[in-house]
Protein backbone atom coordinates (compact mmCIF):
# COMPACT_ATOMS: atom_id res chain seq x y z
CA UNK A 1 0.00 0.00 0.00
CA UNK A 2 1.31 3.50 -0.82
CA UNK A 3 1.19 6.11 1.86
CA UNK A 4 0.28 9.67 0.87
CA UNK A 5 3.33 11.97 0.89
CA UNK A 6 2.47 13.70 4.18
CA UNK A 7 1.99 10.39 5.96
CA UNK A 8 5.41 8.92 5.21
CA UNK A 9 6.69 7.53 8.47
CA UNK A 10 9.19 9.77 10.17
CA UNK A 11 12.67 8.41 9.70
CA UNK A 12 15.71 9.80 11.47
CA UNK A 13 17.46 10.28 8.15
CA UNK A 14 15.80 13.18 6.29
CA UNK A 15 18.89 13.57 4.09
CA UNK A 16 17.94 10.40 2.34
CA UNK A 17 15.14 12.00 0.36
CA UNK A 18 16.87 15.30 -0.28
CA UNK A 19 20.20 13.86 -1.36
CA UNK A 20 19.92 10.73 -3.48
CA UNK A 21 23.29 9.08 -3.00
CA UNK A 22 25.43 8.17 -5.98
CA UNK A 23 27.73 5.32 -5.14
CA UNK A 24 31.36 5.85 -5.93
CA UNK A 25 31.12 9.65 -5.69
CA UNK A 26 34.01 10.61 -3.43
CA UNK A 27 32.42 13.91 -2.37
CA UNK A 28 29.41 12.09 -0.96
CA UNK A 29 31.43 9.55 1.03
CA UNK A 30 31.27 11.28 4.46
CA UNK A 31 27.54 11.85 4.05
CA UNK A 32 26.99 8.20 3.13
CA UNK A 33 28.95 7.06 6.16
CA UNK A 34 26.89 9.37 8.33
CA UNK A 35 23.68 8.06 6.82
CA UNK A 36 24.69 4.46 7.34
CA UNK A 37 25.50 5.17 10.95
CA UNK A 38 22.16 6.85 11.55
CA UNK A 39 20.29 4.00 9.95
CA UNK A 40 22.17 1.47 12.02
CA UNK A 41 21.30 3.37 15.15
CA UNK A 42 17.67 3.63 14.07
CA UNK A 43 17.19 -0.13 13.72
CA UNK A 44 19.27 -1.10 16.75
CA UNK A 45 17.53 1.14 19.29
CA UNK A 46 14.80 -1.10 20.80
CA UNK A 47 12.85 1.83 22.21
CA UNK A 48 12.67 3.50 18.80
CA UNK A 49 11.59 0.24 17.16
CA UNK A 50 8.91 -0.25 19.79
CA UNK A 51 7.62 3.30 19.21
CA UNK A 52 7.65 2.72 15.47
CA UNK A 53 5.72 -0.56 15.86
CA UNK A 54 3.18 1.10 18.18
CA UNK A 55 2.65 3.94 15.69
CA UNK A 56 1.74 1.40 13.00
CA UNK A 57 -0.88 -0.50 15.01
CA UNK A 58 -4.36 0.47 13.76
CA UNK A 59 -6.48 2.17 16.47
CA UNK A 60 -8.88 0.00 18.47
CA UNK A 61 -12.34 0.17 16.90
CA UNK A 62 -15.01 2.00 18.99
CA UNK A 63 -17.06 -0.05 21.47
CA UNK A 64 -20.27 -0.08 19.40
CA UNK A 65 -18.36 -1.55 16.45
CA UNK A 66 -16.86 -4.30 18.59
CA UNK A 67 -20.28 -5.18 20.08
CA UNK A 68 -21.82 -5.19 16.61
CA UNK A 69 -19.16 -7.54 15.26
CA UNK A 70 -19.84 -9.90 18.18
CA UNK A 71 -23.62 -9.70 17.83
CA UNK A 72 -23.64 -10.27 14.08
CA UNK A 73 -22.68 -13.93 14.62
CA UNK A 74 -26.20 -14.48 15.91
CA UNK A 75 -28.17 -13.20 12.93
CA UNK A 76 -28.90 -16.69 11.60
CA UNK A 77 -30.20 -17.78 15.00
CA UNK A 78 -32.40 -14.66 15.21
CA UNK A 79 -33.68 -15.27 11.67
CA UNK A 80 -34.50 -18.86 12.64
CA UNK A 81 -36.54 -17.68 15.63
CA UNK A 82 -38.38 -15.11 13.50
CA UNK A 83 -39.29 -17.70 10.85
CA UNK A 84 -40.44 -20.09 13.58
CA UNK A 85 -42.62 -17.34 15.08
CA UNK A 86 -44.09 -16.47 11.68
CA UNK A 87 -44.82 -20.10 10.77
CA UNK A 88 -46.56 -20.70 14.12
CA UNK A 89 -48.62 -17.50 14.16
CA UNK A 90 -49.75 -17.52 10.51
CA UNK A 91 -49.91 -21.32 10.35
CA UNK A 92 -52.43 -21.41 13.20
CA UNK A 93 -54.85 -19.29 11.13
CA UNK A 94 -54.76 -21.89 8.39
CA UNK A 95 -54.67 -24.97 10.61
CA UNK A 96 -55.70 -24.43 14.27
CA UNK A 97 -53.99 -27.68 15.29
CA UNK A 98 -50.64 -25.99 14.74
CA UNK A 99 -51.26 -24.08 17.96
CA UNK A 100 -50.56 -27.31 19.86
CA UNK A 101 -48.16 -28.90 17.37
CA UNK A 102 -45.77 -25.95 17.14
CA UNK A 103 -46.21 -23.15 19.66
CA UNK A 104 -44.28 -19.97 18.73
CA UNK A 105 -41.13 -18.85 20.59
CA UNK A 106 -43.19 -16.21 22.43
CA UNK A 107 -45.42 -18.97 23.84
CA UNK A 108 -42.33 -20.92 24.93
CA UNK A 109 -41.08 -17.77 26.63
CA UNK A 110 -44.32 -17.18 28.50
CA UNK A 111 -44.32 -20.85 29.51
CA UNK A 112 -40.89 -20.27 31.00
CA UNK A 113 -42.13 -17.20 32.91
CA UNK A 114 -45.23 -19.06 34.11
CA UNK A 115 -43.27 -22.10 35.36
CA UNK A 116 -40.59 -19.90 36.92
CA UNK A 117 -43.26 -17.99 38.85
CA UNK A 118 -44.62 -21.28 40.17
CA UNK A 119 -41.07 -22.24 41.20
CA UNK A 120 -41.41 -25.28 38.96
CA UNK A 121 -38.56 -24.52 36.57
CA UNK A 122 -35.37 -23.94 38.54
CA UNK A 123 -35.55 -27.26 40.44
CA UNK A 124 -35.76 -29.19 37.15
CA UNK A 125 -32.77 -27.31 35.72
CA UNK A 126 -30.73 -27.74 38.89
CA UNK A 127 -31.51 -31.46 39.12
CA UNK A 128 -30.56 -32.13 35.51
CA UNK A 129 -27.44 -29.98 35.65
CA UNK A 130 -26.35 -31.66 38.88
CA UNK A 131 -26.75 -35.12 37.36
CA UNK A 132 -24.81 -34.25 34.20
CA UNK A 133 -21.97 -32.50 36.02
CA UNK A 134 -21.64 -35.23 38.66
CA UNK A 135 -21.64 -37.99 36.03
CA UNK A 136 -19.28 -36.30 33.56
CA UNK A 137 -17.03 -35.21 36.43
CA UNK A 138 -16.78 -38.77 37.71
CA UNK A 139 -16.24 -40.08 34.19
CA UNK A 140 -13.38 -37.55 33.78
CA UNK A 141 -11.76 -38.36 37.12
CA UNK A 142 -11.66 -42.06 36.22
CA UNK A 143 -11.48 -41.85 32.43
CA UNK A 144 -8.68 -39.31 31.94
CA UNK A 145 -6.03 -41.15 34.03
CA UNK A 146 -7.14 -44.48 32.60
CA UNK A 147 -6.93 -43.18 29.02
CA UNK A 148 -3.55 -41.54 29.59
CA UNK A 149 -2.16 -44.73 31.10
CA UNK A 150 -3.52 -46.74 28.18
CA UNK A 151 -1.96 -44.35 25.68
CA UNK A 152 1.42 -44.20 27.41
CA UNK A 153 1.85 -47.88 28.38
CA UNK A 154 1.15 -50.08 25.33
CA UNK A 155 1.14 -53.24 27.44
CA UNK A 156 -1.49 -51.85 29.77
CA UNK A 157 -3.52 -50.83 26.73
CA UNK A 158 -3.31 -54.30 25.21
CA UNK A 159 -4.80 -55.77 28.40
CA UNK A 160 -7.54 -53.19 29.02
CA UNK A 161 -8.55 -52.62 25.40
CA UNK A 162 -10.47 -55.91 24.85
CA UNK A 163 -12.59 -55.33 27.95
CA UNK A 164 -13.37 -51.70 27.02
CA UNK A 165 -14.13 -52.54 23.42
CA UNK A 166 -16.51 -55.26 24.63
CA UNK A 167 -18.49 -52.91 26.86
CA UNK A 168 -18.33 -49.83 24.62
CA UNK A 169 -20.74 -50.93 21.84
CA UNK A 170 -23.52 -51.58 24.39
CA UNK A 171 -25.73 -48.46 24.22
CA UNK A 172 -26.01 -46.73 27.61
CA UNK A 173 -29.78 -46.87 27.23
CA UNK A 174 -29.64 -50.66 27.20
CA UNK A 175 -28.32 -50.41 30.75
CA UNK A 176 -31.45 -48.61 32.01
CA UNK A 177 -33.53 -51.66 32.99
CA UNK A 178 -30.63 -53.27 34.82
CA UNK A 179 -29.57 -50.02 36.47
CA UNK A 180 -33.12 -49.51 37.79
CA UNK A 181 -32.86 -52.96 39.33
CA UNK A 182 -29.54 -52.06 40.90
CA UNK A 183 -30.10 -48.47 42.01
CA UNK A 184 -33.86 -47.98 41.91
CA UNK A 185 -35.41 -44.88 40.35
CA UNK A 186 -33.57 -41.69 41.22
CA UNK A 187 -30.37 -39.73 40.91
CA UNK A 188 -27.94 -42.63 41.25
CA UNK A 189 -29.46 -44.58 38.40
CA UNK A 190 -29.52 -41.63 35.99
CA UNK A 191 -26.01 -40.53 36.97
CA UNK A 192 -24.85 -44.07 36.25
CA UNK A 193 -26.36 -43.98 32.73
CA UNK A 194 -24.80 -40.58 31.95
CA UNK A 195 -21.48 -41.79 33.36
CA UNK A 196 -21.50 -44.77 31.00
CA UNK A 197 -22.27 -42.54 28.03
CA UNK A 198 -19.58 -39.95 28.79
CA UNK A 199 -16.89 -42.38 29.94
CA UNK A 200 -15.85 -43.86 26.59
CA UNK A 201 -15.23 -40.68 24.57
CA UNK A 202 -13.21 -39.34 27.51
CA UNK A 203 -11.09 -42.50 27.77
CA UNK A 204 -10.55 -42.85 24.03
CA UNK A 205 -9.60 -39.20 23.47
CA UNK A 206 -7.22 -39.14 26.45
CA UNK A 207 -5.66 -42.34 25.16
CA UNK A 208 -5.15 -40.89 21.68
CA UNK A 209 -3.58 -37.79 23.22
CA UNK A 210 -1.03 -39.74 25.24
CA UNK A 211 -0.32 -42.21 22.46
CA UNK A 212 0.32 -39.57 19.79
CA UNK A 213 2.77 -37.44 21.76
CA UNK A 214 5.53 -36.26 19.44
CA UNK A 215 8.44 -38.73 19.79
CA UNK A 216 10.91 -35.87 19.50
CA UNK A 217 9.43 -34.07 22.49
CA UNK A 218 9.74 -37.24 24.57
CA UNK A 219 13.32 -37.69 23.40
CA UNK A 220 14.13 -34.04 24.10
CA UNK A 221 12.80 -34.52 27.63
CA UNK A 222 14.82 -37.69 28.14
CA UNK A 223 18.02 -36.14 26.87
CA UNK A 224 17.47 -33.19 29.22
CA UNK A 225 17.38 -35.60 32.14
CA UNK A 226 13.64 -36.13 32.80
CA UNK A 227 12.83 -39.25 34.83
CA UNK A 228 9.80 -41.34 33.78
CA UNK A 229 7.42 -39.62 36.22
CA UNK A 230 8.62 -36.16 35.20
CA UNK A 231 8.34 -37.11 31.55
CA UNK A 232 4.71 -38.01 32.10
CA UNK A 233 3.84 -34.88 34.08
CA UNK A 234 5.76 -32.33 32.01
CA UNK A 235 5.44 -33.73 28.48
CA UNK A 236 2.78 -36.42 28.05
CA UNK A 237 0.12 -34.63 30.09
CA UNK A 238 0.41 -31.16 28.49
CA UNK A 239 0.73 -32.72 25.04
CA UNK A 240 -2.48 -34.68 25.63
CA UNK A 241 -4.44 -31.74 27.14
CA UNK A 242 -6.13 -30.64 23.88
CA UNK A 243 -7.37 -34.21 23.35
CA UNK A 244 -8.49 -34.47 26.97
CA UNK A 245 -10.57 -31.31 26.53
CA UNK A 246 -12.07 -32.66 23.33
CA UNK A 247 -12.94 -35.89 25.15
CA UNK A 248 -14.67 -34.09 28.01
CA UNK A 249 -16.56 -31.80 25.61
CA UNK A 250 -17.79 -34.78 23.60
CA UNK A 251 -18.59 -36.54 26.88
CA UNK A 252 -20.68 -33.58 28.03
CA UNK A 253 -22.63 -33.56 24.76
CA UNK A 254 -23.37 -37.27 24.88
CA UNK A 255 -24.07 -36.92 28.60
CA UNK A 256 -27.00 -34.57 27.90
CA UNK A 257 -28.44 -37.08 25.44
CA UNK A 258 -28.20 -39.85 28.00
CA UNK A 259 -29.69 -37.59 30.67
CA UNK A 260 -32.86 -36.88 28.71
CA UNK A 261 -33.21 -40.53 27.70
CA UNK A 262 -32.77 -41.62 31.31
CA UNK A 263 -35.17 -39.02 32.67
CA UNK A 264 -37.77 -39.80 30.01
CA UNK A 265 -37.83 -43.45 31.08
CA UNK A 266 -37.61 -43.17 34.80
CA UNK A 267 -37.14 -40.05 36.91
CA UNK A 268 -39.07 -38.10 39.52
CA UNK A 269 -37.55 -34.75 38.43
CA UNK A 270 -35.44 -33.06 35.78
CA UNK A 271 -35.85 -31.53 32.33
CA UNK A 272 -36.39 -34.94 30.70
CA UNK A 273 -39.09 -35.68 33.25
CA UNK A 274 -40.63 -32.26 32.56
CA UNK A 275 -40.76 -32.99 28.82
CA UNK A 276 -42.32 -36.42 29.36
CA UNK A 277 -44.82 -35.10 31.89
CA UNK A 278 -45.83 -32.26 29.54
CA UNK A 279 -46.59 -34.85 26.85
CA UNK A 280 -49.18 -36.53 29.07
CA UNK A 281 -50.99 -33.18 29.68
CA UNK A 282 -50.69 -31.92 26.04
CA UNK A 283 -48.53 -28.92 26.92
CA UNK A 284 -46.30 -28.72 23.86
CA UNK A 285 -45.03 -25.30 25.02
CA UNK A 286 -43.52 -27.02 28.08
CA UNK A 287 -42.01 -29.70 25.82
CA UNK A 288 -40.38 -27.08 23.62
CA UNK A 289 -39.24 -25.15 26.68
CA UNK A 290 -37.51 -28.27 28.00
CA UNK A 291 -35.82 -28.83 24.65
CA UNK A 292 -34.69 -25.19 24.38
CA UNK A 293 -33.33 -25.22 27.93
CA UNK A 294 -31.28 -28.35 27.23
CA UNK A 295 -29.90 -26.70 24.12
CA UNK A 296 -29.00 -23.51 25.99
CA UNK A 297 -27.42 -25.37 28.92
CA UNK A 298 -25.36 -27.51 26.55
CA UNK A 299 -24.23 -24.40 24.70
CA UNK A 300 -23.25 -22.63 27.94
CA UNK A 301 -21.33 -25.62 29.27
CA UNK A 302 -19.43 -26.01 26.01
CA UNK A 303 -18.65 -22.30 25.98
CA UNK A 304 -17.36 -22.61 29.54
CA UNK A 305 -15.21 -25.57 28.57
CA UNK A 306 -13.65 -23.66 25.71
CA UNK A 307 -12.92 -20.67 27.94
CA UNK A 308 -11.36 -23.00 30.50
CA UNK A 309 -9.25 -24.60 27.76
CA UNK A 310 -7.89 -21.18 26.78
CA UNK A 311 -7.06 -20.40 30.40
CA UNK A 312 -5.32 -23.71 31.02
CA UNK A 313 -3.57 -23.84 27.64
CA UNK A 314 -2.51 -20.28 26.81
CA UNK A 315 0.05 -21.64 24.33
CA UNK A 316 -2.80 -23.21 22.38
CA UNK A 317 -4.53 -19.91 21.60
CA UNK A 318 -5.75 -19.42 18.06
CA UNK A 319 -5.19 -22.99 16.99
Amino acid at each position, binding site marked *: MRLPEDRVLPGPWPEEREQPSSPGDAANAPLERDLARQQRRAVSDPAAIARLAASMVPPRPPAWRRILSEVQHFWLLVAFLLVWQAVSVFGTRINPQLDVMLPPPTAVFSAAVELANRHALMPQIVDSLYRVLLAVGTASVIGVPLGLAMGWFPRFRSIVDPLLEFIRPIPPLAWIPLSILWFGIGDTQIVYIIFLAAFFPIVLNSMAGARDVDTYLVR*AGQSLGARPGELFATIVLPAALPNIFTGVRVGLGIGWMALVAGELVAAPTGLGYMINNARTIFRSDYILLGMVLIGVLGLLLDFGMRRAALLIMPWHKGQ
Partner: protein
Amino acid sequence: MAQVSVRNVSKVHVPHAGAPLLALHEVDFDVERNEFFSIVGPSGCGKTTLLNLLAGFEQPTRGELRVDGELITAPGWERAVVFQEYALFPWYTVSQNIRYGLKRKRCPPAEQDRLIEHYIGLVGLGGFESRYPRELSGGMRQRVSIARALAVNPAILLMDEPFASLDIQTREYMQDELLKIWERERKTVIFVTHSIDEAVQLSDEVVVISPRPGKIVRRVAVDLPRPRTLELRQSADFQQLVGEIKQIFTGYGVI
Protein backbone atom coordinates in the same frame (compact mmCIF):
# COMPACT_ATOMS: atom_id res chain seq x y z
CA MET B 1 42.02 -41.43 25.51
CA ALA B 2 39.44 -40.08 23.13
CA GLN B 3 36.29 -38.71 24.77
CA VAL B 4 33.88 -40.60 22.54
CA SER B 5 34.68 -44.03 21.19
CA VAL B 6 32.43 -45.91 18.82
CA ARG B 7 33.59 -49.48 18.39
CA ASN B 8 32.43 -51.80 15.68
CA VAL B 9 28.81 -50.65 15.86
CA SER B 10 26.16 -52.31 13.71
CA LYS B 11 22.46 -51.57 13.86
CA VAL B 12 19.65 -53.58 12.32
CA HIS B 13 16.18 -52.04 12.02
CA VAL B 14 13.38 -54.61 12.05
CA PRO B 15 10.34 -53.11 10.32
CA HIS B 16 6.75 -54.23 11.01
CA ALA B 17 6.66 -55.76 7.56
CA GLY B 18 9.46 -56.72 5.21
CA ALA B 19 13.06 -57.74 5.63
CA PRO B 20 15.34 -56.45 8.42
CA LEU B 21 17.45 -53.50 7.29
CA LEU B 22 21.14 -53.12 8.06
CA ALA B 23 21.28 -49.40 8.86
CA LEU B 24 24.86 -49.26 10.14
CA HIS B 25 27.66 -51.74 9.53
CA GLU B 26 30.81 -51.96 11.67
CA VAL B 27 31.12 -48.24 12.30
CA ASP B 28 34.26 -47.35 14.18
CA PHE B 29 35.57 -43.90 15.17
CA ASP B 30 36.82 -41.69 17.99
CA VAL B 31 36.01 -38.09 18.81
CA GLU B 32 38.48 -35.98 20.78
CA ARG B 33 37.47 -33.60 23.54
CA ASN B 34 36.31 -30.17 22.29
CA GLU B 35 36.43 -31.33 18.71
CA PHE B 36 33.85 -30.23 16.16
CA PHE B 37 33.08 -33.51 14.49
CA SER B 38 30.70 -33.90 11.55
CA ILE B 39 29.03 -36.96 10.16
CA VAL B 40 28.07 -36.36 6.56
CA GLY B 41 26.24 -38.61 4.14
CA PRO B 42 23.28 -38.74 1.78
CA SER B 43 19.80 -39.09 3.23
CA GLY B 44 18.95 -42.59 4.34
CA CYS B 45 22.58 -43.50 5.05
CA GLY B 46 22.01 -44.13 8.75
CA LYS B 47 23.64 -40.96 10.08
CA THR B 48 20.60 -40.09 12.20
CA THR B 49 20.57 -43.68 13.50
CA LEU B 50 24.18 -43.16 14.55
CA LEU B 51 23.24 -39.97 16.40
CA ASN B 52 20.31 -41.75 18.08
CA LEU B 53 22.74 -44.41 19.31
CA LEU B 54 25.08 -41.72 20.66
CA ALA B 55 22.14 -39.99 22.38
CA GLY B 56 21.03 -43.29 23.89
CA PHE B 57 17.58 -43.27 22.23
CA GLU B 58 18.39 -46.60 20.58
CA GLN B 59 20.75 -49.43 21.42
CA PRO B 60 23.26 -50.91 18.95
CA THR B 61 22.67 -54.42 17.64
CA ARG B 62 26.44 -55.11 17.77
CA GLY B 63 29.38 -53.19 19.16
CA GLU B 64 29.52 -50.47 21.80
CA LEU B 65 29.56 -46.72 22.24
CA ARG B 66 31.38 -45.09 25.14
CA VAL B 67 31.77 -41.57 26.51
CA ASP B 68 34.77 -41.12 28.81
CA GLY B 69 34.92 -44.90 29.08
CA GLU B 70 31.28 -45.20 30.21
CA LEU B 71 28.95 -47.30 28.09
CA ILE B 72 26.01 -45.33 26.64
CA THR B 73 22.83 -47.07 27.83
CA ALA B 74 20.20 -44.35 28.10
CA PRO B 75 19.61 -40.69 27.16
CA GLY B 76 20.98 -38.10 29.58
CA TRP B 77 21.91 -34.45 29.85
CA GLU B 78 25.66 -35.20 29.42
CA ARG B 79 24.72 -35.74 25.77
CA ALA B 80 22.23 -32.98 24.99
CA VAL B 81 20.54 -33.13 21.60
CA VAL B 82 19.52 -30.38 19.15
CA PHE B 83 16.91 -31.74 16.74
CA GLN B 84 16.17 -30.75 13.16
CA GLU B 85 12.58 -29.81 14.02
CA TYR B 86 13.70 -28.04 17.22
CA ALA B 87 11.53 -30.21 19.54
CA LEU B 88 10.75 -27.24 21.78
CA PHE B 89 7.99 -27.82 24.33
CA PRO B 90 5.05 -25.79 22.92
CA TRP B 91 3.52 -25.31 26.40
CA TYR B 92 6.64 -23.63 27.79
CA THR B 93 7.93 -20.15 27.03
CA VAL B 94 11.47 -19.58 25.79
CA SER B 95 12.90 -19.28 29.29
CA GLN B 96 10.81 -22.18 30.61
CA ASN B 97 12.15 -24.35 27.80
CA ILE B 98 15.70 -23.47 28.79
CA ARG B 99 14.85 -23.99 32.45
CA TYR B 100 13.57 -27.52 31.78
CA GLY B 101 16.93 -29.30 31.83
CA LEU B 102 18.22 -27.16 34.71
CA LYS B 103 15.24 -28.15 36.86
CA ARG B 104 15.78 -31.82 36.07
CA LYS B 105 19.41 -31.36 37.16
CA ARG B 106 18.15 -29.96 40.50
CA CYS B 107 20.06 -26.77 39.83
CA PRO B 108 19.35 -24.09 42.54
CA PRO B 109 16.72 -21.56 41.35
CA ALA B 110 19.03 -18.54 41.50
CA GLU B 111 21.58 -20.41 39.41
CA GLN B 112 18.81 -21.39 36.97
CA ASP B 113 17.88 -17.73 36.50
CA ARG B 114 21.50 -16.74 35.96
CA LEU B 115 22.11 -19.49 33.39
CA ILE B 116 18.87 -18.73 31.51
CA GLU B 117 19.83 -15.09 31.25
CA HIS B 118 23.33 -16.01 30.11
CA TYR B 119 22.21 -18.43 27.40
CA ILE B 120 19.39 -16.23 26.13
CA GLY B 121 22.02 -13.52 25.73
CA LEU B 122 24.45 -15.92 24.09
CA VAL B 123 21.97 -16.90 21.38
CA GLY B 124 20.73 -13.31 21.00
CA LEU B 125 17.13 -13.76 22.12
CA GLY B 126 16.96 -11.01 24.76
CA GLY B 127 13.38 -9.67 24.93
CA PHE B 128 11.82 -12.96 23.81
CA GLU B 129 11.96 -14.72 27.20
CA SER B 130 8.22 -15.04 27.68
CA ARG B 131 7.26 -15.90 24.11
CA TYR B 132 5.89 -19.30 23.22
CA PRO B 133 7.78 -21.26 20.55
CA ARG B 134 4.98 -20.90 18.01
CA GLU B 135 5.45 -17.13 18.15
CA LEU B 136 9.05 -17.45 16.94
CA SER B 137 10.60 -17.90 13.51
CA GLY B 138 12.42 -21.12 12.59
CA GLY B 139 15.85 -19.63 13.19
CA MET B 140 14.82 -18.28 16.58
CA ARG B 141 13.34 -21.62 17.60
CA GLN B 142 16.57 -23.37 16.73
CA ARG B 143 18.47 -20.84 18.82
CA VAL B 144 16.23 -21.60 21.80
CA SER B 145 16.88 -25.28 21.21
CA ILE B 146 20.65 -24.67 21.19
CA ALA B 147 20.42 -22.56 24.35
CA ARG B 148 18.33 -25.27 26.05
CA ALA B 149 20.91 -27.92 25.19
CA LEU B 150 23.93 -25.81 26.19
CA ALA B 151 22.39 -24.63 29.47
CA VAL B 152 22.64 -28.07 31.10
CA ASN B 153 26.40 -27.96 30.39
CA PRO B 154 26.58 -31.26 28.53
CA ALA B 155 29.86 -33.05 27.90
CA ILE B 156 28.83 -33.44 24.26
CA LEU B 157 26.42 -31.54 22.07
CA LEU B 158 24.68 -33.78 19.54
CA MET B 159 23.16 -31.95 16.58
CA ASP B 160 20.92 -33.75 14.10
CA GLU B 161 20.72 -31.69 10.88
CA PRO B 162 19.85 -28.67 13.02
CA PHE B 163 19.73 -26.16 10.15
CA ALA B 164 18.12 -28.35 7.47
CA SER B 165 14.64 -26.81 7.87
CA LEU B 166 15.87 -23.22 7.67
CA ASP B 167 16.04 -21.07 4.55
CA ILE B 168 19.49 -20.58 3.07
CA GLN B 169 20.20 -17.10 4.50
CA THR B 170 19.09 -18.09 7.98
CA ARG B 171 21.09 -21.29 7.71
CA GLU B 172 24.32 -19.47 6.84
CA TYR B 173 23.69 -16.97 9.61
CA MET B 174 23.05 -19.78 12.12
CA GLN B 175 26.22 -21.59 11.05
CA ASP B 176 28.23 -18.46 11.82
CA GLU B 177 26.38 -18.02 15.10
CA LEU B 178 27.01 -21.63 16.08
CA LEU B 179 30.74 -21.22 15.44
CA LYS B 180 30.80 -18.02 17.50
CA ILE B 181 29.03 -19.76 20.37
CA TRP B 182 31.36 -22.72 20.06
CA GLU B 183 34.39 -20.41 20.21
CA ARG B 184 33.07 -18.98 23.47
CA GLU B 185 31.89 -22.22 25.06
CA ARG B 186 34.17 -24.97 23.87
CA LYS B 187 32.38 -28.30 23.72
CA THR B 188 32.62 -31.52 21.87
CA VAL B 189 30.09 -31.23 19.05
CA ILE B 190 28.93 -34.15 16.96
CA PHE B 191 27.08 -32.68 14.03
CA VAL B 192 25.05 -34.67 11.51
CA THR B 193 24.34 -33.13 8.11
CA HIS B 194 23.79 -34.02 4.49
CA SER B 195 25.44 -30.76 3.36
CA ILE B 196 29.12 -31.15 2.53
CA ASP B 197 29.66 -27.38 2.54
CA GLU B 198 28.20 -27.12 6.00
CA ALA B 199 30.31 -30.00 7.35
CA VAL B 200 33.56 -28.58 5.96
CA GLN B 201 32.81 -25.06 7.08
CA LEU B 202 32.07 -26.00 10.69
CA SER B 203 34.26 -28.99 11.49
CA ASP B 204 37.70 -30.04 12.59
CA GLU B 205 37.02 -33.47 11.23
CA VAL B 206 34.44 -34.95 8.84
CA VAL B 207 33.51 -38.60 8.40
CA VAL B 208 31.67 -39.63 5.27
CA ILE B 209 29.07 -42.39 5.52
CA SER B 210 27.91 -44.49 2.59
CA PRO B 211 24.27 -45.52 2.28
CA ARG B 212 22.79 -49.00 2.88
CA PRO B 213 24.52 -50.26 4.84
CA GLY B 214 25.82 -47.14 6.58
CA LYS B 215 29.57 -47.48 6.70
CA ILE B 216 32.36 -44.96 7.20
CA VAL B 217 34.11 -44.62 3.87
CA ARG B 218 36.42 -41.69 4.60
CA ARG B 219 37.72 -39.51 7.39
CA VAL B 220 38.78 -36.04 6.38
CA ALA B 221 40.67 -33.70 8.69
CA VAL B 222 39.70 -30.09 7.99
CA ASP B 223 42.89 -28.11 8.64
CA LEU B 224 41.48 -24.73 7.64
CA PRO B 225 42.18 -21.80 9.99
CA ARG B 226 39.49 -20.38 12.25
CA PRO B 227 37.44 -18.23 12.30
CA ARG B 228 36.06 -19.53 9.05
CA THR B 229 35.31 -16.31 7.22
CA LEU B 230 33.41 -15.79 4.00
CA GLU B 231 36.74 -15.31 2.16
CA LEU B 232 37.97 -18.63 3.48
CA ARG B 233 34.86 -20.36 2.28
CA GLN B 234 35.49 -19.03 -1.21
CA SER B 235 39.16 -20.06 -1.11
CA ALA B 236 40.62 -22.81 -3.29
CA ASP B 237 41.56 -24.93 -0.24
CA PHE B 238 37.98 -24.95 1.00
CA GLN B 239 36.54 -25.71 -2.42
CA GLN B 240 39.07 -28.49 -2.93
CA LEU B 241 38.04 -30.22 0.30
CA VAL B 242 34.38 -29.91 -0.58
CA GLY B 243 35.08 -31.26 -4.06
CA GLU B 244 37.00 -34.18 -2.65
CA ILE B 245 34.11 -35.25 -0.45
CA LYS B 246 31.60 -34.64 -3.20
CA GLN B 247 33.52 -37.10 -5.33
CA ILE B 248 33.07 -39.79 -2.70
CA PHE B 249 29.33 -39.12 -2.77
CA THR B 250 29.27 -39.25 -6.56
CA GLY B 251 31.06 -42.59 -6.45
CA TYR B 252 27.99 -43.97 -4.69
CA GLY B 253 25.69 -42.50 -7.29
CA VAL B 254 23.79 -40.42 -4.77
CA ILE B 255 24.24 -36.91 -6.19
